[in-house]
């Protein structure tokens, strides 16, 4: 007896193929902006959904982040110690008055309670960003695990303005995503939110309550 797969596919294959016309992507392809306009668009779109921005200089962003975390009263900050950005942040946080850094360097099974209960902020880099919709592209990896940008109530994301692109379509085409993706890619366009109660917008439901973009 054929199994469910064969029966379903069999029924579908038995049908004369439906007609279709080729897709014309030009309405999406033609969306482009100058670098300055891209930055402006990203900021406006993200600020509209309560994303905060910290402007920093390329050489001392770690110091900007450290000062910000201190000002926010963050005690424990999770980060990926093996990334370039993680190393620079750790170097800035060696002096007195810095928050304690929690390296996310072991499986979640060994870090779950800390991450859920004790960590105030998570720090990640951003691979690139999308001006069209005001979106950060996060690329979790063994060095920068998925939950860094999800579980802590504050997510601090380091974005280089030079990486801001036009649209999702242009990013995935230019970077050749179709050739294969890592197990998880997340696009983030603001802090967690909901409108499930009377359409009233409330921030910080299950994911981070605040998203702070450090812009260099």
């Amino acid at each position, binding site marked *: 007896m054929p199994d469910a797969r064969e029966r379903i596919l069999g*029924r579908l294959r038995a049908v004369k193929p*439906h007609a279709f016309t080729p897709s014309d992507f030009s309405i*999406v392809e033609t969306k482009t902006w100058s670098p300055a306009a891209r930055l402006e668009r990203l900021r406006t779109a993200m600020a509209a959904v309560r994303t905060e921005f910290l402007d920093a200089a390329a050489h001392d962003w770690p110091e900007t982040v450290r000062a910000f975390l201190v000002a926010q009263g963050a005690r424990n900050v999770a980060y990926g110690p093996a990334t370039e950005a993680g190393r620079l942040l750790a170097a800035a946080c060696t002096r007195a008055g810095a928050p304690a850094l929690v390296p996310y360097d072991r499986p979640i099974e060994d870090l779950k309670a800390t991450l859920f209960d004790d960590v105030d902020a998570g720090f990640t880099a951003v691979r690139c960003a999308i001006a069209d919709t005001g979106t950060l592209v996060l690329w979790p990896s063994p060095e920068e695990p*998925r939950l860094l940008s999800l579980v802590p109530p504050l997510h601090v994301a380091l974005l280089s303005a030079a990486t801001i692109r036009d649209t999702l379509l242009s990013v995935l085409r230019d970077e050749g*995503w*179709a050739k294969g993706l890592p*197990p998880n890619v997340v696009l983030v366009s603001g802090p967690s939110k909901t409108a499930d*109660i*009377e359409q009233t917008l409330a921030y910080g439901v*299950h994911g981070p309550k605040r998203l702070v973009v450090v812009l260099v």
Partner: protein
Amino acid sequence: MSAETGSTDFHASSSKALLDPSLRANFRRAMDGLMAKRAAQFPDPVEWDALRTLAASIRARTLAKLPALLEALEARCTANGIRVHWAETVDDANEIVLGILRARGAARLVKGKSMVSEEMHLNDFLEKNGVESLESDLGEYIIQLDGETPSHIIMPAIHKSRQQIARLFGEKIRGAEYTEDVDALTATARRVLRRKFFEAEAGVSGVNIAVAETGTLVLVENEGNGRMSTHVPPVHIALMGIEKVVEKLEDVAPILTVLTRSATGQPVSTYLNLISGPRGPGEKDGPGEVHLVILDNGRSRIFADQEVAATLRCIRCGACMNYCPVYTRVGGHAYEAVYPGPIGSILTPQTEGLAKRHDLPHASSLCHACVEVCPVKIPITQILVTLRKESAHASPEFLVKGAGGGRDRLEDLAWWGWRMAHVSPLLYKAMSLGLRVFGPLLKGGAGPLKAWTQARTMPRRAPRTLHDLASEKGLPDA
């Protein structure tokens, strides 16, 4: 639902809903808000037209290549380490999910929003089998607490006011005080569900789009509960209907833009979660196992009929219900179906059969608003009319389940009489004469006229017929 026949009566349930002023107010307010937000997202009619033409072409291409794309999806997912399961019926799908959970001894589960899981009545099934299955989307969580079903496919708790939710939380959640403050209510849900995410032994989610080219499951959400459900527990089970696939990764971009803008009037959702496999080598988190359950549940039958197959283009944005004058007035529960509103009125009769659900294709004034806002150009009204026709008089080549099951002999007789009167001048004259003499006596009191005049005023007859007026002007009678 009437017990003897198993068929439902939209007329009765909608009449009941219409008498509930707070329900009507809740829907009116919500739908007005959603319509305004959506409209603001498509200010340029030229762009809107080009975008929906593109989105419709992508979905039509999916259907044209459906069997091949499903096979490609399975192959790519399997290569990525995702285990693929096929289910013909909701019972099969439930058993598959339970089997996965049993094999891992998982008894606590968190769920992201999934309409397919609603089709399966998965929560009930799992609870019966000793598994706690907790909804984590705020709207879904609210209605689960109250033992209800979603009344909208995007905003499941839209029928409830904040006062009702405040009372519910106060009663059902330990340590929650009565408050109407939305931020405080949200914070309560966050507190409760954080623990649940932490403890969960498995996570279930839906799939907004599955990409055949890369073996990627795309999940769209704002709250972060979907990411929590798919990344924190050790096992992730994703549920999708067979139609949810697209051919290429780049197809995702246009679909997403019309989806979020149509659904909630957002240019983009807060999170777009692209899952292409379980925890990879060296990764510190993510589920060790990812399963994909591909459910048919009557879809392949819809696919077989070219006249109604466009139903499967649907991307579940909910715009058709937001704009539907019937849905706005009666709300989602009156449809007594998993999918309410215009999409439900074409989908449910096809999956459950016309014999059982022949009432639903009539739950529409055919005003066409749904067709105008549908981002994938589904000819909803045309399909409604086809279903009405086939429910009364099945044509032999029509494949939908239960066709002809809504036939009403009395109605047939009435239409036969009407037709006769219009093909025979003699009968027509007799009918006019009869109406002139007896019409005033009817006063909307008898038989079908009574039902008609319940919500409408009786049309007033002109004192003289068109025939009389025409012959007075010297126009010859045919």
